[in-house]
């Protein structure tokens, strides 16, 4: 197979007169040509409204859409009927919180963590306020790992109905002990909801093997397009939920007085879906599998080790997590604001993210106002790591920071 880098048009561009070095994969990823081609086909040759027409375009479009759902279901080891297409992780997490929250009683507890991305935290805050739920925050240890003992002590107190956690933190890059959490949760009868946005491009996911009850991720962090994603919920739980948004496409019967709704997943997919987006997401899953997890993970381990070693050598740099599981590093530079580091790197053609990465509570927990985050994927090269470090050193020199 060709070098995967060569299959991604967006990686081959000049930024501020430099070749682009893209270290912002945790924010969004670039699409390979095969994904772009699949979407163009969905929007041209096979274009019609899904599940709504008798003409050929509508039929082909419906087939393509359902094939995409099936591919994504296989990508995570799920049944097709458990896979609900969404506009992305944020919508998926809102749906889970809203729909699952309807089944909770005032006083019930939802366990979140200090790692929670705003897309994970805010929907539960809204539901908690509406339904009188108690939200509790699980802390992390210095390595960025969730405290299982805290989770167990909350469970022992009783009343915990849902534990909602990220698979991999978008700020720390640390993989969380999901299987251990699931084991504890099962003992005490709590459900486990996973935000897998950051994991989908780095780890194979098998929802049944993980034993979780719901798992949500988006397409654009796994080399697919923006505006598409998936909410997976275990069949027996999903079938109890009322629809989140109602309208055409989700109904079985409609009269002026009342309506009945279809079985999942269609019950949760009212309105015309983002067909091209889901087709692109499925093509992205195919692309990842065609490269292979073994190759992806082996390359990412090497990139992580090289970056970690280089960053640790600079005394002016403090890493938020020293032992990430993926090549993702959030850091502060002594006496230099993250935005200045980010802009100066941009002038060198290097894209990173700066700020709080939609995780204000985690930054507050560790006392950082803002951090610079370099997030790599297997597409990056060791040479790019060297150029990144050289650029950082030159920035330190310009700003008079002693290394």
């Amino acid at each position: 197979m060709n070098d995967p880098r060569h299959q991604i048009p967006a990686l081959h561009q000049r930024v501020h007169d430099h070749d682009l070095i893209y270290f912002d994969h945790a924010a969004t990823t670039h699409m390979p040509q095969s994904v772009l081609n699949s979407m163009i086909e969905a929007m041209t040759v096979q274009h019609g409204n899904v599940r709504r027409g008798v003409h050929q375009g509508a039929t082909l479009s419906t087939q393509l859409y359902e094939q995409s759902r099936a591919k994504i279901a296989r990508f995570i080891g799920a049944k097709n009927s458990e896979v609900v297409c969404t506009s992305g992780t944020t919508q998926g997490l809102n749906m889970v919180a809203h729909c699952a929250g309807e089944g909770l009683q005032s006083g019930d507890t939802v366990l979140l963590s200090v790692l929670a991305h705003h897309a994970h935290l805010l929907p539960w805050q809204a539901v908690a306020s509406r339904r009188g739920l108690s939200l509790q925050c699980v802390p992390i240890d210095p390595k960025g790992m969730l405290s299982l003992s805290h989770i167990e002590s909350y469970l022992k107190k009783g009343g915990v109905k849902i534990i909602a956690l990220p698979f991999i933190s978008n700020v720390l890059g640390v993989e969380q002990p999901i299987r251990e959490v699931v084991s504890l949760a099962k003992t005490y009868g709590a459900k486990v909801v996973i935000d897998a946005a950051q994991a989908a491009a780095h780890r194979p996911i098998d929802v049944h093997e993980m034993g979780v009850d719901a798992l949500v991720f988006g397409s654009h962090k796994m080399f697919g397009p923006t505006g598409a994603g998936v909410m997976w919920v275990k069949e027996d739980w999903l079938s109890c939920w009322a629809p989140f948004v109602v309208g055409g496409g989700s109904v079985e019967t409609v009269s002026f007085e009342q309506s009945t709704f279809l079985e999942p997943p269609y019950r949760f997919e009212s309105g015309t879906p983002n067909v091209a987006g889901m087709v692109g997401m499925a093509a992205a899953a195919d692309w990842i599998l065609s490269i292979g997890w073994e190759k992806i993970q082996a390359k990412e381990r090497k990139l992580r080790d090289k970056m970690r070693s280089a960053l640790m050598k600079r005394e002016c740099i403090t890493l938020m997590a020293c032992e990430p599981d993926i090549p993702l590093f959030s850091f502060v530079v002594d006496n230099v604001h993250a935005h200045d580091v980010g802009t100066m790197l941009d002038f060198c053609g290097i894209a990173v993210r700066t700020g709080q990465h939609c995780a204000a509570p985690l930054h507050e927990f560790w006392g950082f106002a803002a951090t610079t985050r370099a997030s790599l994927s297997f597409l990056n090269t060791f040479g790019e790591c060297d150029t990144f470090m050289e650029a950082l050193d030159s920035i330190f020199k310009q700003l008079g920071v002693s290394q």
Partner: protein
Amino acid sequence: MKLYSASLLRESKKPSCAGLLSNPTHAGVSSNPLCGDRIQWTLRIVDDKIVDARHHTRGCALCIASASLLAQRILGKRTYRVVPWVESFPESVSKMLENQEDISDDVLSIFVGLRHAPSRKRCVTLPWEGLSETIRGSKPKCKAIPKP
């Protein structure tokens, strides 16, 4: 045209009017929760004249330099002149970003490199956003001002 020019870095490393007044007549805060930047303003306004101004800025180089330049420019000025100037500043920055003409304004000119990084506009305008409101306030907004 460089954003991080020597003059900007000098201003950010050794900002003028840094600190907080112990006996302000006016005090206020402007902050951007998205990046954590925060500017505390303390002013002494006597007979409509700004006789002293101090800022404590936690932020990036652009934000600190901007607060420093702003504090210097308002000292000794009448508030009725300062407020319209301060309030028009964000629009002046927008205009600077929209066209490529030379900049004559000495405060704006130090930030002309923003044309290469327009997403950083708010870093520059943040100190200005809170100042006019601070001037309009008749009493200090925070009674006990925490030490920097």
